């Protein structure tokens, strides 16, 4: 149905008008007073341009991966919590199985020393 696309075109048109308009009005209103730190992409003191072959410790990756694993665990827990009554005992047992598998993994990474920052 082509008419279903009308809201999308409206949306595109609003975006195409609103964004240039805000930028333009902002440019007219704000004081223009540039300096070196203000012109950097990130105004937080980190040098934006650096050697591409710079090294940092591989442990960051391990921590990041472990974070993702337990993050996803929570993502699975939320819908179960919302539908707790509907899923009943089956849902509870299933979630305990899921958590048990994750706990085995947790014990494993703990004992392997992946959590130690040495």
């Amino acid at each position: 149905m082509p008419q279903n696309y009308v809201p999308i075109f409206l949306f595109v048109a609003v975006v195409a008008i609103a964004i240039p308009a805000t930028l333009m009005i902002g440019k007219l209103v704000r004081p223009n007073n540039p300096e070196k730190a203000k012109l950097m992409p990130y105004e937080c003191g980190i040098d934006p341009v650096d050697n591409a072959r710079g090294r940092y410790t591989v442990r960051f990756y391990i921590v990041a991966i472990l974070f993702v694993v337990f993050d996803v665990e929570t993502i699975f827990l939320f819908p179960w919590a919302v539908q707790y009554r509907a899923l009943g005992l089956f849902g509870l047992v299933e979630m305990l199985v899921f958590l048990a598998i994750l706990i085995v993994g947790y014990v494993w990474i703990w004992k392997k020393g992946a959590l130690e920052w040495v």
Partner: protein
Amino acid sequence: MPTSFFTGTDYALSLPMILLSLFGLGVLIIDLMLPAEWKRWNAITALIGLGFSTAAVMRIQLGHFADGRPLVGSFAYLSNVGGQVVGSVLMDGFSIYFFYLFLLGAAIAILMSAHYLEIEHEHHGEFYALILFSVVGMMCMASGYDLVLLFIGLELMAISTYVLVGFLRRDKRSNEAALKYLLLGAFSSGIFAYGLSLLYGLSGSTNLQVIAQALQRHYSANPKDPIAIVAMITTATGLLFKVAAVPFHQWAPDAYEGAPTSVTGYMSVAVKSAAWAMLLRIFLWGLYPLRPVYLPLLVFVSVATMTVGNFAALSQNNLKRLLAYSSISHVGYMLLGLIASDNITNKTGIQGILVYLLVYTFMNLGAFAVVTSLRRRDIIGDEIDDIAGLYSKAPTEAVLMLLFLLSLAGIPPLAGFYGKYFIFLSLIQTQHYVLASLAVLYAVLGLYYYMRIGSAMFMRPATDPEPVAISPGMQVALAVTAIGTVGIGILPEFFIRAAGWSLGIQQAGTSLLGFLR
């Protein structure tokens, strides 16, 4: 909302997978407590797990499957299509046949691995846990009747295999192989998932049976519907990648060469069988209405696969690469079986593929077992030069290797002959004479590169005099594969019946339950 999500049938059907997962987790935990010199117990624990799982498969086969009708497992998902209940799992003879095949391949691979990993100084319990987890994934692939379960099984198997390929952490080749395999595997899984999403869009369901019915309506209304064709091609691309068919084969030689040799053997049989199980399940069950569309594609792919596999194998000097290309060419032969028979009017080709995968498990794992045993502290042992003069050093091993190679080439008294025989028979039954002649010619070409290894073993002098040491586990693996290769060759009837039973072919003189009673 159904009152019960996971019924008793579901429990019985998933018991093999549950047991394997429990043992896999158990191996991970037990490994933490074992001192370094006791790591062999991990292999034994994993083998016990495979044994329990086999018992659970037998329980399904004998207890729940006695009347020969396929069992439908809901796995928390049931829907009613035209008065017929369809679920996520279809436990028929096909699934059970493949379950046994995976368990067999994993058991032989574990027997091959223990000593090899000690030599590599990488003997960790995670290896066995990953093998068990990958078998769970394979079982989902063979019995899955729902796109979601099939895809989860595929990913579980593939991710375990990526890690196994890179298991030799200190070896750059192993790391490179794992990275290539991971990137290409993830890419192909993406294409495959895209195809599945289109199939879902066309049918509104993830169940293969509903998809088949929707495609049937679609195809009879509009045979050239581009969406259905794109869905079929993208799904087929993902599947053909997983079985390493040309033009999606490039990952195979690199991944096979870099992986630990026992893992290469495991990948070339069990992982490949699982990919075949899923390919047959999708092509013959879900995509069956599109058969006139995918047939020309398969003819092209299988001829290209046989050509590239056989010609590229001619010039290889690395044993693992050579066997990788030979396994690509075997995929070409198997695809011919899928071209010839559709599992409804003619079942010979599909039966041939199943027999082929079984004999391939024995003969290829046997060949890889011999290559694995060449590894010593100071020699990688995967070049043809390393196997030279094997007959003067270890005559038994050299003779066994010759048996495996002759069987791979398809010489009659050995098992490999029956795999090819049924494929060619189905081609002739369905009047594909050109394809049959081509396949026979390529089979002759195969003999040359297998016999290059043979002549190096028997005719050339050994490059170094050090004897080959064979561990007890390896002896068992070699014995099992040799007995399988020769045994199926001499007494093929039982195994052919088993393959026929798994497809529900009525056989004269036997009960429907075929091969166990």
